[in-house]
């Protein structure tokens, strides 16, 4: 615990120069490391432009153009990156009402999103409305616990994804929220919701054991956690054994730091979420030590806001 506190107080920029500031035992020499940065958004809700300068709480914050600048800055650091979105791409500004989500998809493509999952509001123009916008998305939509066989999305989404970076393999599966009671049936139609816990267990096993992934990510729109028994990211973490990281959404949670939950084997699972509307960009840095059993990660959120405000 003391060690955690000590580490927390280290400035992030200093942490990036970790070789000088961290306990020597923590990380090996720089040339033996593979560095991957996971960047993520959730619940962007069609927030194309920054919030207007009208005295409201979020004025000047967010905006896709600024997010692009920030992402480019991070990519210029030179490490490998993955850019993820945890759903609710649509709904919230007139851009969606007027153009149906076309611009959101085009911009995410331009920003180089690697993958996104579906949120409940991505059904707001109907499942057909979402399917219509996929022609503008040059990145896959991953969702593992919706059976879409009898819908227009049949064959248009994927249920898992593996990226290889040299000999490091990163696996990902996606979890969507229960739609009944949240989205009118006439919008989601024959989409069949499957138990996220069972699906998570199935896919983490497949990714870890059959596809030999070194690191397993769950991209989720279930929500961070609830006071009742509703399935959430925390519950997924508690009930899995090979999932390393859960990138979440839905609850619009602004986290001071990533949450760490113990999995079935007592190992830590990191949960992170980046507020909403593109106000924050989530960031998790992974350092894989090649040929050993060590890995370190640094996480947090970066704000995307207008300093002129």
């Amino acid at each position, binding site marked *: 615990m003391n060690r*955690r506190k000590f580490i927390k107080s280290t400035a992030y920029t200093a942490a990036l120069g970790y070789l000088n500031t961290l306990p020597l035992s923590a990380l090996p020499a720089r040339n033996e490391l593979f560095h991957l940065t996971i960047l993520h958004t959730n619940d962007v809700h069609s927030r*194309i432009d920054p919030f207007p300068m009208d005295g*409201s709480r979020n004025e000047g914050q967010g905006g*896709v153009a600024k997010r*692009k*600048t920030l992402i480019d800055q991070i990519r210029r650091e030179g490490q490998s990156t993955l850019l993820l979105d945890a759903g609710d791409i649509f709904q919230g500004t007139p851009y969606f009402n007027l153009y149906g989500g076309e611009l959101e998809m085009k911009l995410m493509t331009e920003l180089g999103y690697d993958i996104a999952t579906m949120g409940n509001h991505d059904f707001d123009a109907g499942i057909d409305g979402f399917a219509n916008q996929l022609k503008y998305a040059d990145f896959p939509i991953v969702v593992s616990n919706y059976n879409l066989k009898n819908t227009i999305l049949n064959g248009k989404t994927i249920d898992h994804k593996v990226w290889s970076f040299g000999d490091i393999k990163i696996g990902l599966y996606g979890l969507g929220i229960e739609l009944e009671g949240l989205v009118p049936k006439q919008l989601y139609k024959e989409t069949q919701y499957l138990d996220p816990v069972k699906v998570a267990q199935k896919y983490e096993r497949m990714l870890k054991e059959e596809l030999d992934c070194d690191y397993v990510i769950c991209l989720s729109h279930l929500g961070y956690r609830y006071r009742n028994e509703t399935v959430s990211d925390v519950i997924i973490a508690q009930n899995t054994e090979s999932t390393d990281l859960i990138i979440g959404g839905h609850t619009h949670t602004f986290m*001071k730091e990533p949450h760490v939950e113990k999995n079935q084997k007592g190992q830590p699972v990191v949960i992170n979420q980046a507020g909403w509307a593109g106000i924050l960009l989530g960031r998790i840095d992974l350092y894989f030590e090649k040929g050993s059993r060590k890995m*370190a990660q640094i*996480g947090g959120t970066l704000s995307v806001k207008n300093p002129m405000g």
Partner: protein
Amino acid sequence: MKKYILILVVLLIVGACRSTLYLSETELRYERVSEQVKNGDEDIDMMIAPYRDSLAAVMDEVIGNLEVSLTKESPESNIGNWLADMLYEESKQLNDGVLDFAVQNQGGIRVTGMSEGPITIGEVYEVMPFDNMISIISADGKGTKEFLDHIARGRGWPISKGLSFKIKDKKAVEITLHNEPLEDRRIYHFAVPDYIAGGGSGSDMLNSFKRKDIEVLIRDAFINHIKKDTKSGINQTAKKEGRIINLDHE
């Protein structure tokens, strides 16, 4: 048999050479970073520009004036009262003058507040982005109370003028409609978003009542209402007046 052994040996060798990676708690590091971006990416801005311009032509139209700043709160808020009253008045007119009250679900209001001053069409879209239409529910007093209990469990939703109750032990108590208590056997007609009428946000109890859908978007009803007021020289205003009082200490 020999074949299997050979394969097994190969697998073991591959397994041994491969980087096996895991994460241990002591190697987690966190720091929240507040990084500021001065300038947005120009290419992105150019992609947005044509959409922004044609959108602005529609959305920047000023349709009215707000005299006070509005804030979303529970169990009652000025923005909630404003919207619920507009929903009531417009729905009543669309329902041939028959309506007792209106309820707007709290989750359907998608802004944290509105600043005083001119109201644009764009702002109304931001308050109410969902394409929800008006539904009229007809329920007896007992069923109506059930729905109000649901609202109480949700720590209060916007309700229109004339209806009032208190929240005690997560139930609606001391319910009055124009200062009269609800009568169990009387039929009450109330307007709600069709999403709620269909059981959304846990409003399943409404599924058992008579429902009439009015094919008008709630957002359009608001825009219409504000425009009419402006034409008659009326500004928009709202205040909290104790429509819902929460007695539960949470």
